[in-house]
């Protein structure tokens, strides 16, 4: 078993899903969380001046989805066939597209513009996205096949991140997506991890 060391800031951000994948796969990893002040010193030592990074037996991988896919493969959560792997990738890429829109309002410094952007996101962008994704999830609560994959975990992770920024539960009325969320939170590794994460 290789040794894994994940480095990111303390918050959920881009590494939340990666930590969940390790948890779901029951894979041990060193969960390094740095302070903002430590970042300038670390930055030039990373491949592209960004985190998260994952060190695997000395090799450093950056880019969140590249890391996610690697952990998912090790955890058996990347799809059972090449076609399923492509379906997992497609769901994750669509979530990434949504994340770009989230980052846009998240980093907006003008408070009035920010509230406008959040309103547009909550009333138009997100509902349209969730309508599409409700159709892509199946009635057993999975995006691909009939078992948990990175696609389900990534979806849950993004919804978990969003819940503090939205007034209501965006999954209300979305039967399949609610089941996806339930499947993820009832995965034993993830349940234990979330218990630890949210208890302080």
């Amino acid at each position: 078993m290789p040794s894994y060391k994940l480095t990111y800031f303390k918050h959920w951000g881009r590494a939340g899903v990666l930590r969940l994948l390790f948890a779901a796969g029951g894979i041990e990893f060193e969960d390094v969380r740095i302070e903002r002040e430590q970042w300038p010193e670390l930055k030039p030592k990373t491949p592209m001046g960004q985190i998260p990074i994952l060190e695997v037996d000395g090799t450093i991988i950056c880019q969140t989805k590249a890391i996610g896919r690697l952990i998912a493969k090790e955890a058996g959560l990347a799809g059972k066939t090449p076609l399923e792997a492509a379906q997992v990738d497609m769901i994750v890429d669509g979530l990434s597209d949504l994340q770009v829109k989230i980052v846009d309002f998240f980093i907006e410094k003008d408070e009035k513009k920010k509230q406008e952007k959040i309103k547009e996101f909550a009333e138009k962008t997100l509902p349209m996205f969730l309508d599409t994704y409700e159709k892509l999830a199946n009635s057993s609560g999975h995006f691909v096949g009939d078992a948990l994959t990175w696609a389900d975990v990534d979806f849950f992770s993004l919804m978990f991140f969003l819940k503090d920024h939205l007034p209501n539960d965006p999954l209300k009325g979305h039967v399949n997506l609610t089941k996806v969320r339930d499947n993820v939170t009832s995965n034993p590794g993830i349940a234990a991890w979330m218990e630890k994460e949210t208890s302080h």
Partner: protein
Amino acid sequence: MPAYKLTYFNVRGRGELIRLLFAAGEIPYEDVRIESDNWPELKPKTPMGQVPILEVDGEVICQSMAIARFVAREAGLLGKTHLDQARADMLLDGGIDVGKLFEEMVMEKDASKKAEKKKEFGEKTLPPFLALYEGFAGDNGYFVGYSLTWSDIAFFNMMDFITAEFPSALDGYCNLTKVIKIVKRVPGIAKWLKERPITDN
């Protein structure tokens, strides 16, 4: 052998990497190019309202990188180990921001804004990216290990677009120049480059 049907517009854009990978793997596929007029009818039939899409034995995949990765795997160009594959993924994802800025520049309709964006891209964005990637490429002309992977082909595709606007971009970058040379000589790719439809972008 499953039946592959790629549907996209008659441009290189987000479809060309996929076409290059089919070519590299010498994998037959149907290369469907739709007119903009036909798009509104097709759009609701796609998983996420976008093209390219790839139909594989009746299943529909969308998202150009998901499709490209699938074809890369079929062509044996994904990378040998999970770690090699992760390296290829990371190098591909690392080019996305630069690719987006280039696209914005190309699509800019206002001539003086476009000239500004082109200057900014050529002087500020591109040089550090190429310097970084020169370091990632081996002096054998491969980004991952000691053999061709889809990350070499993706880099070639990106530079194919960029050198149309910045012809001497790769001057002085020995490793990157080698990557391009090797990709162009892959038999299936050499053939495709000769035969492919000529489009503006």
